[in-house]
């Protein structure tokens, strides 16, 4: 509401934007904030795109976000946005499930959406991704890239979402190269880059040549390790696979691909539906390959068999989209998974 901050943001706040009671939408991030290079950022990008496409302004009455500083802030933030009369409020991340559930019951005339979790309330749209499908594809890529037949997986904190990444990834590896083994290790944290780095170092040292990290900022350590190894020895085969968005910027020589989760697509989609009066309240909307909700990022151009990999990914994508292959989303399903 004051001089400089407005200039900075290049946008206006609500105070002078009272033209009409237009559609407004907001989101609450978890402690990561909108620049976590991961799904908060992706969600915010989607929201911004939606806002710009619809000629909305940033701020109250348009589109905005609130960042949480701890778990107990989710509820307050969701509530604040609902009170500011935003028509639709997104809660980004499974951590917000409880808070969304609760506020949705209280603010029955408002619409909410939750990403990565399910809330069974008529005014809440639940957005779930089939992470396993994207990670299946990167698993295929990993399996076709590895020379040592040793592949690594670094998980952040053991949770349902990361379990989907893990099982999909392992299924993909298994499908494309049954001889390859996957070394799975959880760091126990999403914010400990040193753990990511040490785990990656261990994996590379023990012969692993492709690692997939579904571990937030912990994964940064993996990129660091791979870049270091590459810088030291340009002939080293140290591949990494990013997560959530195309993380090729984390190291142009070492990022093989990324398991992309198009939170932005989902957010835009739900927002658009809500604006048009088709809000999928009370329903779970699943975003998988078929819905363009997840994808494998482009394969690094310096991979020798890039074309083969791309072809394989295309084939598997078709199979998955058609339902011919059902990618396992839990470790239990993985046990019985057989690639046809």
């Amino acid at each position, binding site marked *: 509401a004051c001089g400089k901050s407005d200039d*900075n*943001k290049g946008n206006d706040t609500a105070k002078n934007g009272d033209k009409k009671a237009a559609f407004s939408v907001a989101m609450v991030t978890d*402690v*990561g*904030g*909108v*620049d*976590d*290079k991961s799904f908060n950022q992706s969600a915010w990008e989607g929201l911004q795109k939606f806002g710009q496409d619809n000629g909305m302004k940033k701020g109250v009455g348009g589109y905005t976000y609130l*960042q949480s500083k701890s778990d107990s802030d989710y509820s307050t933030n969701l509530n604040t946005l609902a009170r500011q009369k935003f028509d639709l409020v997104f809660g980004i991340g499974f951590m917000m499930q409880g808070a969304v559930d609760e506020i949705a019951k209280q603010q029955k005339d408002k619409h909410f959406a939750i990403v990565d979790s399910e809330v069974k309330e008529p005014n809440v749209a639940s957005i779930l991704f089939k992470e396993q499908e994207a990670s299946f594809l990167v698993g295929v890529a990993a399996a076709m890239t590895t020379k040592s037949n040793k592949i690594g997986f670094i998980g952040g904190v*053991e949770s349902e979402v990361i379990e989907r990444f893990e099982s999909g990834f392992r299924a993909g590896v298994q499908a494309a190269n049954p001889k390859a083994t996957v*070394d*799975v*290790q*959880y760091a*126990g944290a*999403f*914010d*400990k*880059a*040193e*753990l990511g*780095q*040490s*785990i990656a*170092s*261990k994996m590379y*040292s*023990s012969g692993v040549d492709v690692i997939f990290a579904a571990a937030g*900022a912990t994964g*940064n*350590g993996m*990129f*660091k390790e791979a*870049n*270091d*190894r590459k*810088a*030291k020895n340009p002939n080293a085969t140290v591949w990494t696979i990013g997560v959530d968005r195309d993380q090729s*910027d*984390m190291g142009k020589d070492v990022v093989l691909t990324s398991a992309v989760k198009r939170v932005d697509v989902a957010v835009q989609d739900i927002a658009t539906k809500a604006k048009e009066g088709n809000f999928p309240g009370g329903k779970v909307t699943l975003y998988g390959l078929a819905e363009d909700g997840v994808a494998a990022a482009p394969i690094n151009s310096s991979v020798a068999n890039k074309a083969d990999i791309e072809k394989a990914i295309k084939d598997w994508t078709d199979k998955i989209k058609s339902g011919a292959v059902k990618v396992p989303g839990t470790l239990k399903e993985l046990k019985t998974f057989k690639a046809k």
Partner: protein
Amino acid sequence: MSLMEILIIVVPSTLLWAAPLIFTALGGIFSERSGVVNIGLEGLMLIGAFTSIVFNLTFVGTFGNATPWVALIVAMAAGALFSLIHAVAAITFRADHTVSGVAINLLAAGLCMFLVKQMYGKGETAIISKGFNKIDIPVLKDIPIIGKIFFQDTYWTSFLAIIVAIFAWYIIFKTPFGLRLRSVGEHPMAADTMGINVTKMRYLGVIISGALGGIGGAIYAQSIANNFSHATISGQGFMALAAMIFGKWNPLGALGAGIFFGFAQSISIIGSSLPFLKDIPNVYLLIAPYVLTILALTGFIGRAEAPKADGTHYIKGGR
């Protein structure tokens, strides 16, 4: 996995993780040896991490490959400057050292994130392009066995930490400065009657701790995290504090403790690849470093005595 393989994996990652801890713990030692309790180490690391990343991002064009080293020096200066707040509060204003240290932590966290948002308009910085890289130490790397374990795929900063720790030990125990610093932390009134400026020594102790804490943060940021966000420094300062106590306020002790922490951490990582540990729940490996530390403390370390006047104010003529 053979023992050799294990060592080749464990040792470099131990040293990598130990380096920032060692620097910061050494900082704590200088401060506490002078009698000023410093639980603000976390904050000092934060300032160091923040400064180094910002500097690195801004000046990488100017300094090229030397950027991380220059950033290290800048972070050192920033840490020293920031620690002055603690010095003024704890020494001149006679603030409770613990309270002031807590304030340092809170302030650093708030300020750095505030500035990141102010400068970049978002909650975290970009990734730096020139950090500290893996290296093989020339000559030493060729020593049979040892060379491969200790001197290959490692970081200059790790060895810098070891050298600085030894240097700090020398300073503290072998030089007039060290003698005076310790005397001020043990019995400031005695030092005063010997014509030593207690206030000056304590300021120096705190400023050095700021400088070393800044370096610790900068090393962490530039060799591990590669950018700065709210999560970059999350608890490492407290681990450094623990390393300082674990090492009994002795630089070589802190060196050992830092390496021990790094080792415990690495062991927990390697554990999942060892046949006999493979099937135990992950949680045991996750808590292993912490439990090991507690066991080590109860087992062979025994009681650690802080400098006698640690945390006290020196008031001329007081009792």
